[in-house]
């Protein structure tokens, strides 16, 4: 095995100053560890926080080469960053798993997923979800389930995801209950999520006949659950949303009702 079998190319991540993609090609044998360590030496660790090792064209990683990656990762971790692997071939991934590398490094299916992880974790990149749906109660369970799954996928705990699911459920149910009926009317759900918080805005077309009741409910001390009789089947939704969220604003006018909820990540 010769060193010439290895090619290394460093590329910026478009639009990001804190990340690099290093493309490795060939076999990372014990003969090429100086080139790997030399590559890590060229990194400016004061600005670069995230290195993605693109392994799509790598067929072998020796234990010595893996040691160099561990060294590179250590330097990044010490400055609050990380080194991850992307696009590992199946055989190589299995081999690295057997070597226990998966307990140290994160593996991503492709560089795009790795870049997204960087943007999410280090640039606090917001992700957006926008749904429009007709005001039918039966559509709420799959919607709340989707939102909960998104939160879980983004690293929110089961408990936080459950709370988010409950908030969405209650807000959407209220929108349907107090909005205009009909398949041609729609409810808009906009969700923005980042590692620290999730925000929702649910907008619906208000039913003029239900408008006064809705306004009265918002203005009243309905949030005080102690004033509800135990045999009252309804009226606890808004209070529940308020208790589960960190911020709740309801804007109700003739054109529509907009409910904005902010929920901070707790765990």
């Amino acid at each position, binding site marked *: 095995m010769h060193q010439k079998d290895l090619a290394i190319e460093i590329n910026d991540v478009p639009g990001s100053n804190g990340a690099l993609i290093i493309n490795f090609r060939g076999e990372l044998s014990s003969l090429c560890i100086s080139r790997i360590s030399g590559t890590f030496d060229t990194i400016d660790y004061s600005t670069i926080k995230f290195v993605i090792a693109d392994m799509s064209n790598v067929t072998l990683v020796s234990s010595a080469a893996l040691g160099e990656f561990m060294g590179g990762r250590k330097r990044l971790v010490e400055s609050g960053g990380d080194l991850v692997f992307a696009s590992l071939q199946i055989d190589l991934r299995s081999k690295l798993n057997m070597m226990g590398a998966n307990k140290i490094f994160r593996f991503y299916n492709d560089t795009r997923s790795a870049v997204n992880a960087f943007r999410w974790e280090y640039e606090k990149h917001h992700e957006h979800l926008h749904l429009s749906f007709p005001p039918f109660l*039966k*559509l*709420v*369970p799959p919607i709340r389930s989707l939102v909960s799954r998104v939160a879980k996928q983004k690293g929110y705990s089961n*408990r936080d995801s459950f709370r988010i699911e*409950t908030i969405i459920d209650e807000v959407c*149910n209220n929108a349907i209950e107090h909005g205009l009926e009909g398949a041609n009317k729609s409810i808009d759900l906009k969700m923005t999520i980042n590692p620290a918080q999730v925000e929702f805005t649910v907008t619906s077309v208000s039913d003029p006949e239900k408008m006064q009741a809705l306004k009265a409910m918002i203005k009243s001390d309905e949030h005080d659950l*102690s004033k509800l009789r135990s045999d009252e*089947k309804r009226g606890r939704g808004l209070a529940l949303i308020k*208790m589960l969220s960190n911020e709740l604003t309801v804007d109700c006018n003739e054109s529509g009702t907009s409910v904005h909820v902010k929920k901070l990540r707790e765990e």
Partner: protein
Amino acid sequence: MESQIELLYEDIPGRSNARLIRFVGDLDATNVQSVLEKLNSLFSEGFTRLVADFRKLRYVNSAGLGILLYFTKTVREKGGSFKIANVCENVYEIIEIIGATSLLEIYDELNEAIAELN
């Protein structure tokens, strides 16, 4: 696309007029009415001492809690009882926030709830 909820009924050995109801799934606005009808129907059939097992109740919202509170009060007024056991952590938190822990009869374990039927 309604939420799936199943109510599975079982006899409680040695307890007359009693039934164990295992809730499986999500209790929400899409199914509260049918659940309430099933509970009322069971009570009307003479099963006046009811124990609900919530071990597999994954989700409950304010509408679901509303009917549980309503049913508990109705049953009490008619001389019966409706006890709840094995509530999972997430569901218990919602019950707690709503302030319903003192209004519902909640037990940690099923056998505790059944013992209290006496």
